[in-house]
């Protein structure tokens, strides 16, 4: 391995990719491999960690280090990896079931700890690998094999969940927009701490085009807004629609009256308001960067304490570990 510039191909592993033809996962993989080549990533410094699900096969296809773990627990493995070697660039790949059902606890805790990892949640609003049961992000009324009369469970909104868990960086992108994915990966990568990205992902077999009313290409311009920190909240084919915060609400306005998006306010309230605004049919689905704040990084603090302890007590030796406390002699 030389330090010469790597291409997208260098990040493709020798494993045959086994997702269904047309699955949104392919586009995400391609975008990631391209992004890694562009950012000049070192394969040996990179670890992809995943749980279980179609999405969680991702690490096998990246020519980096990879750990395909158990269902829902990838954040815990990643925490151990980062606490051991903070130099590694760790990316977690999870699904809506993996991350929000069985692994909800670990996702919540890695977000609050602010471990320096990037989390990609492939949200297809379905359990793909187990063949199409509704998931914790499926809307009420989803009719699948395990919900013949429609699901009655209220869904999570992944970005709102992440913000609620004190996430320091939260964004949303979509598998059908390579440019937007690349831009979002880069923003997450630049963040120090846990960066959570929800990627709306098309499961062509079990939940085809679930996003056809929102982020699908023909409607996207009018149905979504790309939130860019420091820029006006403007959207629409003709860039004529605006949004602004009014009291405890987000309201539509003209492009001229649009507010400036700030995902870094002390309180997470504006980010939460924006994350949930599409519950109101008149408002767009938010994409882009929803939250971005600076907080201490978990593993940095962990290792700092070790350094402090060593500075104070000296590096511990085996001998003084054992030969400590009050001793006496038997002759």
């Amino acid at each position, binding site marked *: 391995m030389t330090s010469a510039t790597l291409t997208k191909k260098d990040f493709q592993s020798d494993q045959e990719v086994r997702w269904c033809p047309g699955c949104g996962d392919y586009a995400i993989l391609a975008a990631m491999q391209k992004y890694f080549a562009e950012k000049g990533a070192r394969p040996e410094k990179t670890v992809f960690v995943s749980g279980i699900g179609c999405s969680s096969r991702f690490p096998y296809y990246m020519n980096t280090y990879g750990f395909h773990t158990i269902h829902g627990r990838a954040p815990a493995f990643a925490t151990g990896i980062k606490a051991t070697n903070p130099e590694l660039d760790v990316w977690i790949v999870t699904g809506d079931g993996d991350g929000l059902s069985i692994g909800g*606890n670990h996702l*919540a805790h890695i977000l609050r700890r602010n471990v320096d990892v990037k989390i990609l949640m492939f949200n297809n609003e379905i359990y793909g690998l187990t063949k199409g049961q509704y998931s914790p992000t499926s809307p009420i009324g989803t009719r699948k094999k395990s919900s013949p009369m429609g699901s009655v469970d209220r869904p999570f909104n992944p970005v709102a969940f992440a913000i609620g868990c004190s996430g320091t960086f939260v964004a949303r992108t979509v598998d059908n927009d390579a440019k937007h994915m690349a831009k979002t990966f880069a923003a997450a990568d630049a963040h120090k701490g846990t960066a959570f990205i929800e990627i709306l992902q098309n499961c062509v077999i079990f939940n085809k085009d679930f996003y056809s009313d929102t982020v699908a290409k023909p409607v996207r311009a009018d149905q979504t807004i790309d939130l860019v920190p420091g820029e006006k909240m403007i959207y629409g084919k003709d860039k004529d629609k605006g949004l602004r915060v009014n009291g405890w609400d987000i309201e539509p306005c003209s492009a001229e009256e649009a507010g400036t998006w700030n995902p870094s306010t002390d309180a997470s309230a504006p980010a939460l308001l924006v994350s949930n605004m599409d519950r109101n049919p008149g408002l767009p689905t938010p994409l882009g960067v929803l939250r971005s704040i600076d907080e201490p990084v978990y593993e940095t603090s962990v290792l700092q304490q070790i350094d402090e302890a060593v500075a104070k007590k000296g590096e511990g030796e085996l001998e003084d570990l054992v030969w400590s406390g009050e001793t006496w002699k038997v002759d």
Partner: protein
Amino acid sequence: MTTTEKPGAELPLQQLDHVVIRFAGDSGDGMQITGNQFTHTSALVGNDLATLPDFPAEIRAPAGTRPGVSGFQLQFSSRDVHTPGDAPDVLVAMNPAALAVNIKDLKKGGIVVANTGNFKDSDLRKAQLEKNPLTDGSLEGFRVIEVDINSRVAEALSESPLSTKDKQRCKNFYTLGLMYWVYSRPLEPTMEWLATKFKNKPELVDANQKALQAGFNAGDIHELFQGHYEVPKATDLPTGTYRNIMGNQALAMGLVAGAKLANLQPVLGSYPITPASTILESLAAYKHYGVVTIQAEDEIAAICAAIGASYAGALGMTSTSGPGMALKGEAMGLAVSTELPLVIVDIQRAGPSTGMPTKVEQSDLLQSIFGRNGDTPMPVIAVSSPTDAFALAIEACRIAVQYMTPVILLSDNFVANGAEPWRLPSMDDLKPFPASFVSKPEGHQTYKRDARGSRPWVKPGTAGMEFRIGGLEKDTDGNISIDPDNHRSMTDQRHQKVQNVADSIPTPEVFGPQEGDLLILGWGSTGGIITQGVQTAQAQGHNVSRIHLTHVWPLPNGLDEIFGRFKAILIPEMNMGQMTRVMRSEMPHHNFISYPKVTGQPFLTTEIVDKIESLLSK
């Protein structure tokens, strides 16, 4: 230990070979501190000893009630001892509840020291006693020493600026002083301990030291006792430098030492649970040894973080008790499948479910050996005593690193909180087993096996070695495979690797006659009691032998041949016969007799001796 001297005579000093003393009081009375101080001082005096703390189930049950009683028993001796003793010679009861709960265990003719200051009607009611046991004749046959510790402490501390309530909190040191007088112990170690403990609170140092001294003086002045005693230092202990150590403390030190000997950074993932929490707490204080502790959100995350650490090139460790073991099962399977080193510590407690968190049992044995989905073999080793925990924690690290496997290290409540003198190992006794990492792609395969059957370890960060692993079945190259022959072969390889561990451990020694009618087989914390029981039975002329297993899976080589030399093999264990089941399935042609005890309390030596007698008389 009775003496014929009458009160008032010159107080004689009598020599005793060993004494078993139990301190019992309300959980707020500081009985654990009292017990630990008595232990500490006795250790410094040179006695051999063993302790058994008995914690109440509740942190703070209502004061004065039976569930709130906290106890601490220790045996100190001028000879090598292996157990905290069966029946106490002396019971110190700080209140009626403590008396009521513990009196049934006291030796016939034993001494009760009762704090009469706490025997008012209201105290009796809290202990659910209708009559006062001190006056109703129920203590007949015991020697009762009545001391109003409450008022004596108040008197002794009349000058102290502390509040009345705080003064009363010095009662345990008064009691300790009294017992120090009875057993001729020096006050200095506790005086010093108090001075450091309350460094920043001189008024507390002063009050507690005064109480200790007053208790000591009371023995002499008030002639409460007919004499006092001396237990000379043990002379049959191997020479060396000693310190006193508790099981979990030794285990935590062993984990640090094991990682050092492997030349790896120790990373512990853990979630608090009784009686394992003190391992997390101890390791958190070893940061200057490079120890990383992650207090995870649950036991699953704890083991997963530890596996992540091993994947990244550290030595991952996780500590828990039975309920946590149940949660870790799936992740253990991943560690077996990916063949990463990992030390899993299980401090067993009485189950099922939440069970009795502060009581002892050895009932996680089968769960440890077999309790995972799939054919998922894993070495299991079991600690027998507080000092053994140090050596076996190192042994667990050795097996984990040399065989690239998760290892379960079983201990239990009895060992974890028990204490004994520890002969400190010399650094030469600790043999390093440095881990090696592969960094050259030539000839490398992810699951290529060495002579032990172990696979190579590659540290992420190494250029040119990028690989992917996971819990899906894989072939030797690490590629996912569902080929039937490959699965059979990989399953065999995983089993063989664990089996190979047996070649790295000695065949256990038979103590006593090398053949005969009866062999007692112990594993884990029954070891000390079986030793004492068999020695007693042998001294009584019985032809009986014993053997102890440290490695409970895989079983050491040579057992079959040993068992063949005995007509019967008795297996006392604190569960419903789990080791007996293992033995019967592994070596069905021997005569194994199960001897289960599931009361949440360790075996008594007499129970072992009686069982030996009854079996040999058949």
